């Protein structure tokens, strides 16, 4: 195909384009529009189908409706400790302070959270949160969030480009000028010119075999940012959710909400022991119950009892499950038991966890109100991502912003459950706000270099033009096995080295990939292009993991099993230099003394400061 034919494409111009139609992207677009910017949302799927719908348990915000003792400082402390103090302190502070307002704003736009007897928003217990803090709607909070934001975007008349896949960011003299991609339904190219771009593309869990992530989570935003010259950070920290389904194979990895434990469920090994009591780390000893009696009392009386170890942060629980299974105390299909049936009434379970009930009933023939069920760790969330400035969500590339799972910093080495939905709206809003302000200061979108379009089009068309090349499905399958086996929950140097060799060989195979058929809604072609992102993310993650020679949060090294205080001071930062990836450590931003006191203060709850907004 000639350059002239490639130049044939749709074209549109906006002040701000938001790439990604999940919670963060929607919130960013809503804010940018509210600021007066002409805004478009570009999403790979249909509108309202993004991965946010899968979020179940709730969104964390110190609303103090259930526990007046709560406050932003307690939330901040929990977030920092959950992230093993590797978090960007400023992001954690902003997040804790602003999330209550963001929750109330959702209610204003039509969200209907479960209620307290006083008519306020009910909050539920979750791992790592000192108080019941998660605003929720049964076990389908993500659906409520995305639907609310979706219809708010409709109300504001925001343009939505559905089933549109961005493949390249375009720069003009180092700042953002637009994006180039294709429509999935027709295969036709599209050029979007913009003064500012917000990346809200979510995570990259699709590179693992056992994952809660949908096909969309290929890490496109991470690749786009890296190629545009932005930094990635903390890419070694991948959260394995402790409770995914393990059987049947067809649904292996499917998320089982932490709400099951938040509402009273406990983990047991094949001997019926509540093994989590054997895995309480020193760091959390002071605030965790050491007897079953105290743990059970805690659900009702949080003042005089300590939290059940079933609700330790996710990294701790996932590792504990892994150890139990390795020690031969696992269930028939290689998981452990999660039991809520013997602890709560059937009515309660069906009311609090309706979709879990249906999910197990329909997909696994298991009635969770009658029996315990098998669960095991599953790849869930990327703590790492695009490095952003805390207040503005700006990346190191001018005009490029990032929010949500694709951004790094808030969660440090491990994310607490419930902090991601609040992350989406808090930093989605900030990204939209600052992108709109940035756009307002520009006179026109930057110039687009036609040779960039040609290069991008040639790269995209190559799999269609090639005959009898590599099969994209086979590459994806091999990649998933490699990442699952070698860069999983527990890592070691030799395996990481092997993984890197293999990932590079897949890169080689990808250069010979061919997709049968034409460009019109062709999943083989779409996958061939997505594989570029998946391989980039896999390589970055593997290399960052072999660089960090310690165990911390979502990164566990068999060969370096303990945390190293030196590594507590630095992030691993990745950037592209002259076409090559370069990784280095950079010191964490310095936390002010007062916040340090809150974050590291021993066990006791600090007096609740009134939630304040900056």
């Amino acid at each position, binding site marked *: 195909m000639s350059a002239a034919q490639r130049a044939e494409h749709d074209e549109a111009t906006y002040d701000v384009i938001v790439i990604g139609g999940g919670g963060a992207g929607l919130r960013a677009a809503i804010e940018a529009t509210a600021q007066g910017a002409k805004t478009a949302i570009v999403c790979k799927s249909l509108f309202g*189908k993004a991965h946010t719908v899968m979020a179940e348990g709730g969104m964390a915000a110190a609303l103090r409706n259930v526990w007046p003792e709560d406050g932003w400082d307690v939330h901040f402390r929990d977030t920092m400790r959950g992230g093993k103090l590797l978090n960007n302190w400023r992001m954690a502070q902003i997040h804790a302070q602003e999330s209550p307002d963001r929750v109330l704003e959702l209610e204003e736009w039509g969200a209907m959270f479960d209620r307290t007897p006083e008519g306020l928003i009910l909050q539920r217990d979750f791992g790592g949160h000192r108080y019941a803090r998660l605003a929720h709607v049964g076990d389908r909070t993500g659906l409520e969030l995305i639907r609310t934001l979706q219809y708010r975007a409709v109300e504001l008349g925001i343009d939505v480009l559905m089933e549109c896949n961005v493949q390249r960011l375009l720069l003009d003299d180092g700042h953002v000028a637009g994006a180039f991609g294709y429509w999935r339904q027709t295969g036709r190219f599209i050029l979007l010119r913009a003064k500012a771009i917000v990346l809200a593309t979510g995570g990259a869990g699709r590179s693992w075999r056992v994952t809660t992530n949908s096909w969309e989570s290929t890490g496109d935003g991470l690749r786009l940012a890296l190629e545009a010259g932005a930094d990635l950070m903390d890419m070694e920290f991948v959260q394995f959710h402790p409770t995914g389904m393990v059987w049947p194979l067809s649904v292996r990895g499917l998320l089982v909400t932490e709400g099951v434990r938040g509402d009273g469920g406990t983990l047991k090994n094949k001997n019926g022991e509540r093994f989590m009591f054997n895995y309480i780390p020193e760091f959390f000893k002071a605030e965790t119950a050491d007897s079953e009696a105290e743990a059970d009392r805690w659900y009702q009386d949080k003042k005089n009892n300590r939290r059940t170890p079933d609700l330790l942060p996710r990294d701790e629980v996932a590792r504990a499950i892994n150890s139990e299974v390795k020690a031969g105390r696992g269930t028939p299909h290689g998981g452990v038991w999660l039991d809520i049936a013997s602890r709560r009434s059937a009515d309660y379970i069906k009311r609090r966890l309706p979709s879990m009930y249906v999910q197990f009933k329909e997909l696994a023939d298991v009635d969770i109100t009658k029996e315990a069920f098998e669960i095991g760790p599953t790849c869930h969330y990327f703590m790492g991502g695009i490095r952003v400035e805390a207040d503005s969500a700006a990346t190191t590339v001018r005009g490029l912003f990032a929010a949500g799972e694709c951004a790094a910093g808030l969660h440090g080495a491990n994310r607490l459950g419930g902090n991601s939905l609040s992350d989406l709206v808090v930093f989605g809003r900030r990204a939209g706000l600052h992108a709109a302000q940035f756009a307002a200061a520009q006179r026109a979108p930057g110039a687009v270099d036609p040779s960039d379009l040609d290069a991008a089009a040639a790269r995209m068309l190559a799999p269609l033009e090639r005959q009898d090349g590599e099969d994209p499905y086979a590459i994806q399958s091999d990649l998933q096995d490699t990442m699952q086996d070698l860069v999983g929950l527990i890592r070691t140097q030799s395996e990481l080295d092997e993984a890197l060799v293999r990932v590079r060989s897949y890169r080689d195979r990808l250069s010979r990939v061919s997709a049968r058929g034409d460009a019109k809604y*062709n*999943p083989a072609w779409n996958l061939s292009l997505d594989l570029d992102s998946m391989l980039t993310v896999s390589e970055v993650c593997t290399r960052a993991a072999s660089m960090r020679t310690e165990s911390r949060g979502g990164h566990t090294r068999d060969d370096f099993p303990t945390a190293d205080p030196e590594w507590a001071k630095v992030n691993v930062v990745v950037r592209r230099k002259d076409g090559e990836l370069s990784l280095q450590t950079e010191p964490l931003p310095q936390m002010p003394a007062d916040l340090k006191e809150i974050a590291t203060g021993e066990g006791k709850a600090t007096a609740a400061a009134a939630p304040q907004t900056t």
Partner: protein
Amino acid sequence: MTETTEQVRRDATVRVFRGEDRTSGQFVEYTVPVDPGMVVLDVMFRVQQMRAPDLAVRWNCKAGKCGSCSAEINGRPKLMCMTRLSSLPPAEPITVAPMATFPLVRDLVTDVSFNYEKAKTIPAVRLAPPGPDGKRRMFQEEVDRVQEFHKCIECFLCQNVCHVIRDHEENKEAYAGPRFFVKLAALEMHPLDTRDRIEMIRAREGLGYCNITKCCTEVCPESIKITDNAIIPLKERVVSEFYDPLAWVKRRIFGGPDDGAKEPAAVADR
């Protein structure tokens, strides 16, 4: 765990609709190996991996939460990710067709933009101001009813099965469809919403076209009682406003139909 209840099935034969338009397209038969516990969507993946890499299938979460993989399996509208092979007759091939009501894009993928256009016609929620502490008070007993409607995953199976537009193309202009009656019911029954959409529900959204044959309720993967809990209560509200002189008299004497008159909403002021 009861995997033994599973029909032991080593392979599955599917007849999948293939093509870019409904006249020239046809059903193509594929046989692929299957494992216990598989759903129809798993079989589509196998077909893509082993037989037809370019088979167009729209899907996302594969967990019944996003509502992307709607199709007609053995003639019944269903989500492919929630339809287990063990629920289908093992002896015969499984027919998988795209949704009939929407224009075909390719294979099993249809253009569902009809629904997104309809969504734009619905006036958004507008709540009464919050209390002095900045918080709103709603109670579980009044929220319950609306939360059922909020379970909707927008799979559009109800829109697809509704004969008003499935069999009568000309009605698409004047009829919003079950999904949006659910949405409108959620807004109308919102305890704090201040807008009245009854006139537009009757006139513009075409509630009267529905003849409550309940197919929407039958196909809803979220088990929302669309007809009984959303459409019929809306029909009753329309009756009060337009077809019931007693209600009219009552309104004239005692004021609004509910607790406080609502402000009529028009399409224009979304």
